[in-house]
């Protein structure tokens, strides 16, 4: 379980760097985002044999920083003055998906753009994505 979480962190942090650099070349950032989703799906398949609770813990450890900032955004709780940086931190955390997020369109809901809501809920969606793929029956 811990090995899986460490692997996810390593992949995520290297994808973070790849995501920033690729954004200099418009289009490549979208490719990086798609590759990231595929690689995470492959990682999830590695966790197939783990009990469900361990899959949940692995995904939660992997997304712990983003879950923390998402909770700050949703609750408006200014823990240690971090609230105003929470959306910045979520943006940086999800840099690997920047290319796809930027395609979210320009619609506003309750005074905020669509990508804002995607960022706030992506930590939970990422966990579900990982746990879901890790739980699909092999044929």
């Amino acid at each position, binding site marked *: 379980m811990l090995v899986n979480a460490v692997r996810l962190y390593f992949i995520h942090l290297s994808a973070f760097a790849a995501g920033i650099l690729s954004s200099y070349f418009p289009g490549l950032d979208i490719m990086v985002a798609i590759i990231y989703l595929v690689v995470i799906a492959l990682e999830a398949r590695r966790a197939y044999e783990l009990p469900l609770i361990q899959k949940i813990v692995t995904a939660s450890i992997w997304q712990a920083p983003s879950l923390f900032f998402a909770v700050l955004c949703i609750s408006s709780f200014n823990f240690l003055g971090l609230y105003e940086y929470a959306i910045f931190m979520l943006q940086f955390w999800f840099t690997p998906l920047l290319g796809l997020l930027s395609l979210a369109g320009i619609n506003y809901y309750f005074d905020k*753009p669509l990508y804002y809501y995607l960022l706030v809920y992506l930590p939970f969606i990422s966990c579900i994505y990982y746990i879901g793929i890790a739980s699909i029956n092999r044929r």
Partner: protein
Amino acid sequence: MNTKPKRGRNKFGLLLFPLLVLLFSALLVSSNRPVFENQEAVMYAYIDSAARGNFGYGNTMKYANDISFAGLEAGDIILGGYPDCAYGRFSHVAMYSGNGQVIEAFADYGVHIRPIDHFRDYKEVCLLRVEADPEVKKQAVEYARSFQGKMFFALAFKPGDRIWNCSKVIWKAYNEQGIELDESEDLWISPDTFCDSSHVSIIREKGI
């Protein structure tokens, strides 16, 4: 018997992104060698600030500066700065669009239009006028307005039209009108870049 392909797949997942980082770094450096050799490039300012422990846009507070916005024209540039900002004297920039409104970009709103009054919160404020035909400035405002709702990302590079930060919106709006506000041809635009441009003059500035 099945372990070899599995091992290969295990390594593939771990090595793919580091390899992409190397590839993209090589492409970026080779296509921007003069920027990397320029010690005044924005990235070196970020690194210097980080070494001093300054990250982000500095110590935010409502400083209640009393600068006058009287006489601003559409297309003028407004800069605001908090102490210990990582990118220089100014942390934010917006374009005046008329009727007390500015076009700007923030993380939680993307590119959007809002009242100018929040620039009173900054400790440092500077109002710049781009030396250009009023019709050209009007076109720059309209062009910037067309980015409304687009995504904000603090480290948005100059190329591309999906990801923006506050400085890139203004640079691009004037760039499309044939006015290059960044004479250093850097990878990024920082708010301070506009102060150094030969195409602008200072209307007034204030530091508390």
